[in-house]
């Protein structure tokens, strides 16, 4: 019985030691396996990061070297996609210089985009300013340009551009109001001519008085443009509104179109500029 017990104890000890060894071997294998797998994953991550960094570098360099073929939107889209990527992997120390290089390129591209945007805003503002100062464009021309400008301006929320657009809109509004006045005066000019053609001198004189009431005084200057070439404007000898209205009556023909009307604070015309039809 004792022997049997002793043998049982011995075999238990042996069994217990075997399990221990087996466990030890298993733990060792697992540890070794995990370590090997970790190393492999790290390597894969490093390779992936390196490839992404290389691609990003190529894209950013292409943007930097582009001399105007790429649109700002395209540059922004590419930069945005690159910025979304995570290049910060502290375990891949050897790629850190490349990460820094890509980050530096991203900053340069951002600067290039900002400069290109500013250049476009400057060009747009110069275009609007030129339209505000251009007195040869018609209302239709200006309205068409304004629609195009507003379309472009949507991309940039620039306060100076918005102010200039407001000024251009104001100019168009004034020109439309002016056109109504021009039309009224031109109709009156035609009426004087029509009455004179019918030899209705009294009727023509009455119409002249009506027109004169819209001017500062009968001596209000009237300028007649005979030619425009670049910045050079050639006028006929300046006359007065009274003399001009009588001229229409005498010559029985309206040879000039209204170019510009300047009014005083009381709304009376202080200068009338005509142009040969």
């Amino acid at each position, binding site marked *: 019985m004792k022997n049997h017990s002793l043998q049982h104890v011995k075999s238990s000890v042996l069994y217990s030691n075997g399990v221990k060894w087996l466990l030890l071997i298993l733990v060792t294998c697992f540890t070794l396996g995990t370590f090997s797998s970790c190393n492999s994953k790290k390597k894969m991550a490093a390779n992936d990061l390196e490839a992404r960094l290389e691609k990003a570098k190529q894209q950013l360099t292409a943007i930097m070297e582009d001399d105007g073929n790429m649109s700002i939107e395209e540059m922004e889209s590419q930069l945005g996609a690159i910025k979304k990527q995570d290049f910060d992997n502290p375990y891949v120390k050897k790629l850190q210089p490349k990460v820094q290089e890509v980050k530096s390129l991203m900053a340069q591209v951002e600067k290039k985009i900002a400069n290109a945007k500013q250049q476009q805003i400057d060009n747009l503002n110069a275009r609007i300013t030129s339209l505000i100062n251009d007195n040869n464009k018609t209302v239709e021309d200006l309205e068409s340009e304004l629609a195009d400008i507003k379309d472009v301006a949507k991309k940039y929320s620039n306060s100076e551009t918005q102010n200039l657009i407001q000024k251009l809109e104001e100019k168009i509004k004034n020109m439309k109001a002016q056109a109504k006045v021009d039309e009224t005066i031109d109709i009156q000019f035609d009426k004087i001519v029509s009455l004179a053609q019918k*030899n209705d*001198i009294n009727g023509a004189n009455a119409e002249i008085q009506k027109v004169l009431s819209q001017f500062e005084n009968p001596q209000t*200057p009237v*300028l007649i443009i*005979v*030619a425009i*070439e670049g910045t*050079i*404007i*050639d*006028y*006929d*000898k*300046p006359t007065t509104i009274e*003399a001009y209205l*009588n*001229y229409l009556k*005498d*010559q*029985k023909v309206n*040879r000039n179109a209204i170019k510009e009307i*300047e009014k005083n604070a009381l709304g009376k015309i*202080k*200068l009338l500029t005509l142009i*040969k039809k």
Partner: protein
Amino acid sequence: MKKISFLLAAILTIASFIPALAQTDEISPARKQAIDRLALEKVRDLSRYISIIGDKSTPWSEANRVIDRATELFMLGSEMGVSSVYSSEIKYYGLREYFNRLMRLNYDKVEIEWYNIEYVSDLAKQPDGTYVGVITIYQRFKAYDKENGLVYQDTTKKDITVYVKRKETQIAGKLIGFWDVLLGDIRVKETSK
């Protein structure tokens, strides 16, 4: 000797600039065309004024106003030639006197028409910068009285000298460059029935 060489060099330098200055002073064909038209228009204006002044139905005050306008078209001291089919003599009158005589012609109705108004000598630039040309016109004159109807008519070819000079003036604070067109003597070239 050095002084002479320096003087010669200076003269040559200045002389080389003269053609360039003259060139910049020239006007473009488009602007020239505009002043050609302007001068013709002034002659057409005069034609209409003469017709109004001669028209017996024109009120006296209107005729006098038109005489003032017509006189303003001329250079001071200009003359108008007057001829008749009954005489070879051509009389010249000062413009105001001519217009006053025209207004007082002793007919019941007068019709004056100018036609074929065109340049006989193009406007050419003179050394003083004035453009001078000659425009020819044909004038058909018809006079009527109540009893006998048409009592006199003639057709006269007349040459008008035109002077065009660019001037500058200030209007409402703006410097205005304008072409001052003035008519000179109107000379009778031929008269026929």
